[in-house]
């Protein structure tokens, strides 16, 4: 799976959490643009973790602010 395929899968997973239908680009931020609260973050991260069979620890989550950073992080964690 290349970055584009990973991105497509994440785009699919984020849809149910994107309640306001915000247009998503690599620069979209989870806290600012998508207004994710801590519970939404937990459920969304769990969905990503289960899809790709990875762990994104809270320490790693703290470094991820935007959609693009998340796609890169998932690519890296998948190894």
């Amino acid at each position: 799976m290349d970055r584009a395929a990973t991105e497509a899968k994440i785009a699919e997973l984020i849809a149910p959490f994107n309640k306001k239908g915000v247009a998503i680009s690599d620069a979209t931020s989870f806290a600012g643009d998508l207004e994710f609260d801590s519970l939404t973050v937990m459920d969304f991260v769990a969905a990503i973790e289960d899809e790709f069979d990875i762990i994104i620890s809270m320490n790693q989550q703290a470094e991820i602010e935007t959609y693009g950073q998340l796609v890169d992080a998932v690519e890296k964690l998948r190894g």
Partner: protein
Amino acid sequence: MASWSTPSKSCGAEPMSDLFSKFDPLIAMREGLLATGVTDPFGMVMEKVLSPTTAICNGRETILLGTYNYMGMTFDPDVIAAGKQALDDFGAGTTGSRVLNGTYAGHRAVEDALKEFYGMDHAMVFSTGYQANLGIISTIAGKGDYIVLDIDSHASIWDGCKMGDAEVVPFKHNDIEAMEKRLKRIPEGAGKLVILEGVYSMLGDIAPLKEMIRIAKENGAMVLVDEAHSMGFIGPNGRGVAEEQGCLDDVDFVIGTFSKSVGTVGGFCVSNHPKFEIMRLVCRPYVFTASLPPSVVATAATSIRKLMHGHNKRAHLWENSRVLHKGLRDAGFQLGTETPQSAIISVIMPDLERGAAMWEALLKEGLYVNLARPPATPAGMTLLRCSLCAEHSAEQVQTIIGMFTRAGAATGII
């Protein structure tokens, strides 16, 4: 109330950035709430405490239903006598760390009482329950280790995780499958610590510890269970939810507190780990703080020994919990649990404004409960949290149900 203004510019230098700006949203929320004319729910003072279940609050005699005094030990005559004696014999405080001049006979005695209470080899007493979690978690799980914990864990657990620098992996509350998946994804060879609570204090629900601990052990993790809200009355000997579910022997570290059923202040960890005593030298929140005053450890030791024989009180506390849970549900309130699972009965409020109005109406009826709001609560809920005491009489519980019913009708909650 006090006014909040930006500090003035300091002389000659660039304008001082106000580090308090980050609190502006909370300040505005608080001002908005108080502007409705409601009594400040976080500013109540108890002018006189009459018993474990009654006090004078804002000039009125009030039934206390929002303390953690589950077993009513605060005014036990033997406990009080032990404290007074220790105050006379050992003075007001130790003025020192446990590892230097701060370990008195009483500190050893309370650790011995804990070892007996739990039937474990080691006990280590901290100055607060918060410090017990902070100290043990941050010391045993360090960089490169993994902590897998319930998302609804207490603040002291989260702070311990952060301080220790381990990789922190939360899972959905009480979700066994979510926990297992995360444990299985941890890289081979990494140290693993699973952290659970017996009773989760916001909704008063208990954890399926037996199944969770079995899975944790199958995956090579050590297990720490915080039993702060179960000590004294859950389990055949009051050792907590793990004892009740028959899995205490598989718990590596039990964390507890003296500030709930024991009735004073302090925290502890009990363990059967053969190397446990080294904690006394490496655990910074244990080393770099003053030890508990002699009177506090004396009251704690006396209380713990009496709790070993508290069967009748335990039975009465459970009866209180069942009666209050049924009474509030029948009255039409939405509760945090389907069945009474602990001494905490949580009443779910529609929002903070109506929760605060209901809280104030109860206070005017002569009843104190905890108003709990985010971030302490899960899922952004506002809760009126009732914690029962073994010293609440059956009549008091009926009085409480009547107060709730009237206040609920007056504020439109039911």
